């Protein structure tokens, strides 16, 4: 027996004790320590201690959710410091932007970063939703997280739209004027709602203040809350869906690895690379800024922000109640309801469900690419409902009747997938949703690139210069 030697009591200095509390002695080297670290840390706790290795495949998730989170972080930081040089009142708001661009250290870079991150976020968030849809990752038990995701997409659009007005230039003023005029077509409460949002009958000083306050407080707060809920649900739902190959009979082998270092390292490297690219882009491409807002002179053409150009294109073809209220509401409702009638669990994790699903996806994209431009041209040059049905209410002649006529080919196409391809429910959902989404993308592209003065059609490469 050896006699226990009392270890000499060494008094830690105050600095040592502070260091011990705040930072770990060293990175843990064994798996147990690494898992402990995840569980003990607030931020890392968003991750489980271990993740399924195959869910980290780059070609399964494309890192789109993480990229959205990174962009949110960039937007939060740049947004907070931009406020230090901004006054939300005309005309000072515009003068402040000029000042940021010319007289503030890195001011233009920070503004560019904020502007491009915001626009990129819309694209990345939509791609993220497409990825989840394509792999069927919203199926039980992940329905709720799909709803949260779609709600966040709507909030991201709201954040972009309110931010669009803040520079108070001609571009901002008229895009918001055209965009908010759509609200007036909401039945019964439209005018009242429009006045409430604008703080008056038209875009003015009150609108700028309203939008600023929403842009910097309520909307980011709601997005942040939903983001945390979204991350937590990912963990509660068992992480990402596992990728599966076509015709895979055996359930995929589940190999789990520790979050540190496998997942964390990937995330950090990806974030660093993405931020570097973003920074280079923001250095090279300046955010647009036109002359100060002038309520007396509308530019020609006056376009809404680019993400609303698909909607504005619909407005050129339908009565506003149909084009701006009914169709978008139905679309959003449909997107919300997707995970509740597309519930086949066998194809979760397989891109585009099945062999047949893949063929139908290609077919849907191809048909939408062909049919949508044909319809735009027909409606522009041949169809003239209000002329043919002069005594009818324009809501009928220019709204519900064309809508019904548009719906017929879509229903026929859906029937056709069943008759000739023997498509089941999930493949029909895939076909119709892909067709409608592609058509919407085509309309957006037409609106952005092929509409010129007077909203007439021009070739994108032969566009007359807009007058301001």
């Amino acid at each position, binding site marked *: 027996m050896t006699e226990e030697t009392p270890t000499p009591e060494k008094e830690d200095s105050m600095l040592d004790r502070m260091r011990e509390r705040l930072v770990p002695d060293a990175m843990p080297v064994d798996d147990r320590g690494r898992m402990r670290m995840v569980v003990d840390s607030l931020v890392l706790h968003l991750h489980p201690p271990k993740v399924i290795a195959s869910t980290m495949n780059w070609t399964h998730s494309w890192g789109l959710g993480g990229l959205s989170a990174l962009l949110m972080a960039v937007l939060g930081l740049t947004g907070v410091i931009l406020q230090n040089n901004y006054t939300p009142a005309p005309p000072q708001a515009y003068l402040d932007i000029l000042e940021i661009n010319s007289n503030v250290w890195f001011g233009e870079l920070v503004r560019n970063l904020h502007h491009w991150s915001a626009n990129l976020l819309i694209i990345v968030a939509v791609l993220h939703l497409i990825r989840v849809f394509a792999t069927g990752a919203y199926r039980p038990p992940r329905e709720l997280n799909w709803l949260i995701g779609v709600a966040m997409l709507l909030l991201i659009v709201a954040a972009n739209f309110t931010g669009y007005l803040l520079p108070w230039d001609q571009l901002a003023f008229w895009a918001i004027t055209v965009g908010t005029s759509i609200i007036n077509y909401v039945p019964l409460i439209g005018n009242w709602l429009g006045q409430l949002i604008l703080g008056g009958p038209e875009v003015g000083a009150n609108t700028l203040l309203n939008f600023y306050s929403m842009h910097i407080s309520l909307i980011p707060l709601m997005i942040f809350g939903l983001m945390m809920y979204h991350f937590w649900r990912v963990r509660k739902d068992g992480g990402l869906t596992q990728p599966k190959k076509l015709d895979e009979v055996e359930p995929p082998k589940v190999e789990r690895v520790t979050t540190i270092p496998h997942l964390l390292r990937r995330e950090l490297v990806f974030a660093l690379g993405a931020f570097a690219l973003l920074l280079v882009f923001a250095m090279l491409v300046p955010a647009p800024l036109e002359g100060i807002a002038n309520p007396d002179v509308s530019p020609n*053409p006056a376009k809404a922000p680019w993400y609303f150009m698909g909607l504005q294109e619909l407005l050129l073809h339908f009565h506003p109640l149909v084009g701006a209220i009914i169709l978008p509401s139905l679309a959003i409702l449909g997107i919300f309801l997707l995970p509740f009638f597309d519930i086949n669990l066998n194809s979760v994790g397989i891109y585009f469900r099945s062999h047949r699903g893949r063929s139908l996806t290609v077919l849907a994209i191809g048909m939408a690419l062909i049919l949508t431009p044909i319809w735009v041209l027909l409606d522009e040059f041949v169809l003239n409902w209000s002329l043919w049905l002069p005594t009818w209410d324009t809501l009928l002649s220019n709204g519900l009747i064309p809508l019904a006529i548009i719906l017929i080919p879509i229903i026929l196409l859906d029937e056709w997938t069943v008759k000739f391809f023997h498509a089941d429910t999930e493949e029909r959902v895939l076909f119709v949703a892909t067709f409608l989404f592609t058509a919407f993308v085509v309309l957006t592209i037409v609106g952005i690139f092929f509409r010129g003065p007077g*909203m007439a059609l021009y070739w994108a490469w032969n566009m007359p210069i807009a007058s301001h």
Partner: protein
Amino acid sequence: MSETPPIPPSRRDFLKIAWAFFGGLALLETTGIFIAYLQPRLTEGEFGSIINAGLVDDFPLNSVTHISNGRFYIVRLGDGGVLAVYHRCTHLGCTVPWDATAQKFICPCHNSQFDQQGAVENPPAPRPLDLFGVSIKDGQINVDTGNLIERQTFETAQVVYP
């Protein structure tokens, strides 16, 4: 068959209903306060209040004059009648300039066209240009820009005579 007598609500049920009632009431009240607080505020002499456009005799017959701070046109018709036409397009809110050579309002955004009285000559505008209430006293034209008049057609009753 014996009828079961109606059971009076228990103390617990009563409290439940009372809680729900007063909770709902509190929610309604706070929502009302919130919405009322957000109502647009008006400043005297600015757009949204009554704006003096000047002497009626300063507007020649058959003329269209833009009053910039009031966002409207004073249209003086051939017979001396006056209309105050809001300069905002009824389609999507662009400012509609008066084209003196074509004698029309032509919107630069979606090519809606309106005649001198503001009636639609070319869609997509769904209705004529809106009017503001006009009163003429001692030869002075006062336009109430808080009183927006939407109309489906042009009618002579809309014209104000000095």
